[in-house]
């Protein structure tokens, strides 16, 4: 039986290779961006992760062609949106006549931030994602309107700020005041949602590296977010990806920006502690 299954898997892998023009992932490849920024795409799992020994960036599961797009910023279609994010950064808006640049100078002043988000915000008394910090600046300091979670300007700004930390190890705190939010996210990760009764773990922990129909399952890491997807040709926020994955279990999904998705983001980010910040990554 073992033999038969091996044989058939091999032949279906062949059929697949034929159907996709032979584009298989080189899972052993290393990622160095622009010839100088070394990205950790595989490393030992953080201690809190009981069921995995190694963590892997989604980049390692993509085809050679998709992998290549991320190796040079001239080829990375996500970089156009980073440029647009810089325009937003410099745009004066709101009753206080300020832009992001008025208070923060250049975006490089926020180097390192992406690697530790989401994190506990003492003043607000809750865990904050980058979007929440951005919206606080807009409403409290600029006198401008909050962006919607998936607004183009919001996603492009998060890409601009994230790319400043590219190559730095993800290092999200899971203890202290953030712990209960982290526990909530962990519980969600293992909850079997929807009519298909599938949890994040069913696909991204138990079955990563397996194909589910035409999709090569990764570990569902978020170190590359916001990611440029070839499928919709724009940058996509973490919560939009979560929303799609929950919807695909035939479940009632959660809203981007909801407390639930913030908790899930903290937990999923912590599963990637040790991988490099990779945003804006390129995925299919």
């Amino acid at each position: 039986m073992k033999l038969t299954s091996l044989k058939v898997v091999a032949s279906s892998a062949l059929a697949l290779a034929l159907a996709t023009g032979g584009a298989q992932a080189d899972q052993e490849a290393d990622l160095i961006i622009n010839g100088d920024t070394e990205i950790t795409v595989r490393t030992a799992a953080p201690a809190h992760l009981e069921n995995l020994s190694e963590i892997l960036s989604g980049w390692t599961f993509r085809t050679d062609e998709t992998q290549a797009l991320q190796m040079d910023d001239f080829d990375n279609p996500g970089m156009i949106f980073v440029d647009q994010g810089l325009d937003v950064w410099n745009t004066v808006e709101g009753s206080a006549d300020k832009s992001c640049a008025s208070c923060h100078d250049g975006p490089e002043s926020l180097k390192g931030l992406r690697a530790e988000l989401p994190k506990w915000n003492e003043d607000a008394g809750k865990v904050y994602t980058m979007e929440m910090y951005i919206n606080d600046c807009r409403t409290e300091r600029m006198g401008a309107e909050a962006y919607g979670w998936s607004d183009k300007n919001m996603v492009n700004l998060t890409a601009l700020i994230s790319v400043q930390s590219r190559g730095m190890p993800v290092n999200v705190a899971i203890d202290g005041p953030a712990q209960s939010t982290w526990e909530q996210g962990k519980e969600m990760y293992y909850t079997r949602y929807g009519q298909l009764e599938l949890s994040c773990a069913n696909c991204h922990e138990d079955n990563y590296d397996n194909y589910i129909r035409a999709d090569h399952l990764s570990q569902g890491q978020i170190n590359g977010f916001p990611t440029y997807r070839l499928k919709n040709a724009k940058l996509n926020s973490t919560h939009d990806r979560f929303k799609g994955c929950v919807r695909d279990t035939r479940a009632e999904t959660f809203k981007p920006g909801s407390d639930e998705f913030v908790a899930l983001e903290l937990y999923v980010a912590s599963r990637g502690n040790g991988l490099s910040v990779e945003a804006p990554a390129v995925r299919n």
Partner: protein
Amino acid sequence: MKPTLIGVTCLMLGAGAAVAETAPQAVEYDEYGAVAASLSGAAGDPVEGRVVVSTKSMGNCVSCHAISEMSDVPFHGEVGPVLDGVADRWNEAELRGIVANAKMTYDGTIMPSFYKDTGYVRPGDAYTGKAAKVAPLPPLLTAQQVEDVVAYLMTLKEE
């Protein structure tokens, strides 16, 4: 075993076949998860079953299982075992149980339950991401589709 008589209504309306369908909650699984009687009260059609197994909007079984006989269908998944020769490993009642609710055979399996209508966390309205509009939900496959799939699986013999 008491099949509920959903079929009776159809019968009174004069809608063709006089068959007794078993509702999802009335299905009786034995201690190993097998289901002895046809869920629709009728025999399955293996040709229809093959369509259900390979079609994304229906059973979509190939998203998780590879089947050599189906090499005309692209992209077979690897999440579940290869189904070649599955009829040598299981009898009809066992296969019916696995398709209707595989969790009765394999505790905690990732395989969805195709003939079940309650007990979900945040059930949705198909793939819309919105809340389910009805409870209980329509099962993923109808009783007859389960029978058709079982009839198809019974053709997967290697010996």
